[in-house]
């Protein structure tokens, strides 16, 4: 076993790695390609950043390709993202044309790699048309939807499904997100990498450095939400919850730590709204972190007492898993993939309102023993269910099943 695999075995258990080796053995040397639309920022990029090297370590010849486009392309795909999450968006013909042209342009470059690949995963709507643009493809193609598509705006899904329906299979994070499609829809939740800078163990000095860096008081409780400045993440709701908590626990501090994803054009506008809602409260710390601030986020999660992910819509919410891996109780919006990660009253609390979040925060701050117990539960729950070793095992199982089906 290589050093990297040994490191995974140490955290996830040897059995987890042995299973990966068994599944990867028949795929040794096969060409496996992932395609998405951003190399930095957002959950998909974070997953691929660590999963691709792990796949290569297992002997699968894996590459990660990124499609690129201009403003209109990202406006269109942001509209699709919001539409899949249920917003009644109207995407203009002009934007759809940019979407189609961008995919056609990217296909010119990617076609040789994609048509030659044995296995392809296309992530999310941005590169979905690539399958139709690679007529000489020889491998198995699977579409991965990371978005909460439980109630998509029908025109958006109808448009997108014309590209998705021809894939060999698709996979979603939750059963609720599955759609009417002519192929099998697997259920595979995403994961975190326990060895990444965002999740690895840190020295105490590294952890404590964030107090000075962000003017936080180590003696007072901290509540934290890590997420992009996006309305669906409800940063304004978090500020409301903080204000309710402040009435009972005046010493509370709030940290909102976010950054932008290169494929999200709305971030700046939401950030402005958040700053406006925070006003001049010195205990609200609004951080705009660069996409590579992984260790900073890791340390912020470790110095926090309670972590929130009060999303209104959430495909999965990797920040929830990250916080749980740090042994912290988490308060999450009762929506999407958050419901899969937070086992209510065991690894944290699910809430529907800022008032609900405030109630649970106050309850936990008054009961440190409960906080500790929930944190222990949370970490073990992640070890069993949400590490990338489990995630990759399921992806490789999916392609094993597709291979077996084509043999019979």
């Amino acid at each position, binding site marked *: 076993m290589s050093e990297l695999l040994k490191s995974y075995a140490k955290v996830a258990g040897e059995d987890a790695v042995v299973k990966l080796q068994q599944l990867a053995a028949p795929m040794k040397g096969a060409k496996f390609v992932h395609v998405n639309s951003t190399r930095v920022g957002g959950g998909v990029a974070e997953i691929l950043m660590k999963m691709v090297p792990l796949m290569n370590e297992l002997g699968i010849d894996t590459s990660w390709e990124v499609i690129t486009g201009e403003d209109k392309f990202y406006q269109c795909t942001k509209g699709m993202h919001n539409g899949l999450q249920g917003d009644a968006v109207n995407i203009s013909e002009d934007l759809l044309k940019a979407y189609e042209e961008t995919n056609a342009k990217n296909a010119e470059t990617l076609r040789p790699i994609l048509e030659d690949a044995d296995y392809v995963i296309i992530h999310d709507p941005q590169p979905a048309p690539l399958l139709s643009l690679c007529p000489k493809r020889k491998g198995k193609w699977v579409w991965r939807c990371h978005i909460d598509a439980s109630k998509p705006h029908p025109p958006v899904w109808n448009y997108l499904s014309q590209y998705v329906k021809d894939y060999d299979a698709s996979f979603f994070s939750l059963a609720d997100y599955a759609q009417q499609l002519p192929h099998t829809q697997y259920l595979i939740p995403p994961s975190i990498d326990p060895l990444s800078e965002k999740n690895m163990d840190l020295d105490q000095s590294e952890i404590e450095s964030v107090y000075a860096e962000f003017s936080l008081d180590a003696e007072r409780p901290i509540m934290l939400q890590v997420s992009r400045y996006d309305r669906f993440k409800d940063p304004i709701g978090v500020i409301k919850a903080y204000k309710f908590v402040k009435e009972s626990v005046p010493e509370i501090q709030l940290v909102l730590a976010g950054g932008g994803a290169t494929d999200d054009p709305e971030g700046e506008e939401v950030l402005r709204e958040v700053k406006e809602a925070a006003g001049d409260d010195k205990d609200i710390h609004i951080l705009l972190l660069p996409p590579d601030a992984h260790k900073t986020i890791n340390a912020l999660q470790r110095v926090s007492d309670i972590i929130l992910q009060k999303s209104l819509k959430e495909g999965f919410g990797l920040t929830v898993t990250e916080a749980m891996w740090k042994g912290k109780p988490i308060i999450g919006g009762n929506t999407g993939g958050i419901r899969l990660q937070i086992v209510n009253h065991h690894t944290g609390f699910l809430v529907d309102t800022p008032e609900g979040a405030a109630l649970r925060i106050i309850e936990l701050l008054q009961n440190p023993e409960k906080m500790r117990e929930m944190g222990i539960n949370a970490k073990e729950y992640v070890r069993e269910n949400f590490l990338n070793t489990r995630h990759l095992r399921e992806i490789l199982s999916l392609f094993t*099943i597709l291979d077996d089906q084509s043999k019979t």
Partner: protein
Amino acid sequence: MTSKTENMQPLVIKDCNVLNIATGVRAQNLKELRDALVNIHPGSITYHFWTNKLRPSFEEPEYNNDFAIWAYKSLHDNKLAERLSLINPVAFSDTEDLRKKLIEVLDLSIEENQSHERSKESEKFQFTRSEIVVFDKEIVVNRPEELSNIIGELPLGSIYYHYIYTNEPSENIYTWLARFGDQYKGLTLEIINLDPYLYTLQELRSRSAQVFKDHFEGDAN
């Protein structure tokens, strides 16, 4: 001439990974559940009675199948939950009979129940099925004594595979034990008496380990 037990095939221990599949079929009330059950993939019925045992949980499940749990938690219909829970899949020779029984119980409740309770949108019953990928644990057991030493440590995927999933005679725990004949008749009967439907996989594993231990320690004494 060799004895009967020497001719026995060894038990090659397997583990499995279950991959869940969304059928896209959902129900929000009893009528929708009943109507969906008429045509749902048989693998989905199996899933909600058996594969659910592999789902992680912090609590003892109130009931043993997903239909009963949903009736209790999402429809708040305790009476129906109890009736559904009493349906033991072990008693049915095939999934079609099990399907008929489920529909019969639901029909009775629909007839009695005038409330037409609906689950929350977020708590719809999601019909799911699964496919399985099998792993070789690289452990071979020749005799029940050897199984006794390791059964308490086997992963839950192995317990699921050998007790519930496989009907292959050389891999299914019940048929494998039965092949040893009278020599292990008592042990085999005790293992058969551990109804896998009534226990979580953790309980099934620990109770089995205890049965094996009692059997062989008894022999030694």
